[in-house]
């Protein structure tokens, strides 16, 4: 009786081992191509038009449906890490600090003065915003700005987790983007410049 039970248990174990082995084999195959690094964009990624500067639904006349532009690098870990490198290289940290805000607004909270959509962040970086944000479109290429957009979105976990950074190259001043809880973006309650 016990022997039959043992045989059954052994078969279950054997099946489990086989399943695990197959699963592992499949895993090794999937690991071959996690993502493609896109070193250059040809033709260059289109920059959002002026309509992207619209940050409010309030407007005269019928509602204009704004085409939503997907951030080209939101799910690309390498591009997000390049964005992170640019964030420090271009001294974004000088005002926004490591995303916590200081001279400029915080980038890791749920409040967005000019919107959290990719094209809105692109417009904020490229065109600049009142009260101190410079326009970067002459100083950075479109591809670089898109990388920055995806990094800024990763600061409040708005992009897929797999693409967010797991650690810093230097001393950690905050939890890595990969373990930041996702926020629900909302418009800022205070207008810019009032705080």
């Amino acid at each position, binding site marked *: 009786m016990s022997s039959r039970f043992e045989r059954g248990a052994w078969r279950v174990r054997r099946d489990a081992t086989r399943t695990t082995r197959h699963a592992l084999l499949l895993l090794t195959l999937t690991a071959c191509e996690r993502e493609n690094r896109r*070193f250059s964009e040809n033709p260059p990624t289109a920059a959002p038009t002026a309509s992207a500067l619209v940050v409010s639904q309030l407007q005269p006349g019928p509602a204009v449906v704004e085409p939503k532009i997907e951030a080209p690098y939101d799910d690309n870990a390498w591009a997000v890490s390049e964005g992170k490198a640019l964030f420090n290289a271009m001294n974004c940290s000088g005002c926004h600090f490591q995303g916590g805000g200081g001279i400029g607004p915080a980038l890791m909270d749920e409040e967005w003065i000019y919107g959290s959509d990719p094209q809105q962040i692109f417009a904020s970086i490229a065109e600049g915003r009142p009260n101190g944000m410079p326009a970067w479109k002459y*100083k950075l*290429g479109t591809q*670089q700005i898109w990388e920055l957009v995806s990094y800024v979105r990763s600061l409040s976990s708005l992009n897929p987790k797999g693409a967010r950074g797991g650690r810093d190259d230097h001393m950690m001043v905050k939890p890595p983007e990969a373990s930041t809880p996702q926020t629900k973006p909302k418009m800022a309650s205070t207008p810019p410049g009032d705080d």
Partner: protein
Amino acid sequence: MGVASSIMGSALASCSGPQNVLDPAGPPNRSINHLFWAMLVVAAIIWAAVVVAALWAALSRRRRTREDLEPIVDVPNEEQRRHVGIVTGLVGATVVTLLIFLVYDFTVGRALAERPSRSLTIEVIGHQWWWEVHYIDPDPSKLLVDANELHIPAGEPVQVKLKSQDVIHSFWVPNIIGKRDLIPGYTSSLFLHADKPGVYRAQCAEFCGLEHAKMALPVIVHSRADFAAWLAEARSPAAEPNDSSAKEGKKVFLAGACSSCHALTGVEAYGTIGPNLTHIASRRTIAAGTLPNTRGNLGGWIVDPQSIKPGARMPSNQLAAKDLRNLIDYLETLK
């Protein structure tokens, strides 16, 4: 016969060149080379002797009888005593040979670590994937920041301090000095000592990412007088453009993306992400030894660096044809 001689010829030909450990260009590397050849020759002789002995042992006819193979009482006979003597002698010879090389090796090591009290100090900072070079002067206003080319005077030791900005790189001028790692957060140092003027090629010798292979550094050894002249010239600010197209190019450089990463001494371009371009037109190569510095290569590098060196920090620049021409005109005036 012809084949053999051509192989010999190519083997000898590979013993010289700008990037060759077997073609020493200075005292430290020469002493390393002597050690190398001494070890190689002695090891080759020993190896040959061992091979001959092994062949002799394998091929010589057995002279033993059946009784010799199965001794009933193990009494050392004359032959066994001789064998013990031979083995002891050879073990002793091995120990003595290794000890001699140990002492020789220490002497060479000490000669390399020699620290002259006064010497020119150069800082080499590794970046992914290029070299930043600082020529230190006691007078801070004379600090010279250069990139992707190392100039040293002949006939005196030059201290090179090695740092890294990002990952571990390794500094290696095969003709002049062996490798030393550039480690983030740590300064290591070595002495370059070259005999005579010449142009050599250094290469990053520690895998540091995608473009590790395209991280080379031309090393130019000047005579002392030439070096002083070069230093004075290199400390001068960026040349002012004279013709109209170069003047327009300067505007493109300053208003566009170039100046966010590149610096020009004496001009409002302070970027430190990429190499300093104050004297770009005098450099032999661009992109850290990747391409010869020609007008065509420069244009290709500005417009599409990612197909020349994929992954490099330099982005592709979409410039209007006129702007690009003016920009290259300007860069070519930066002698």
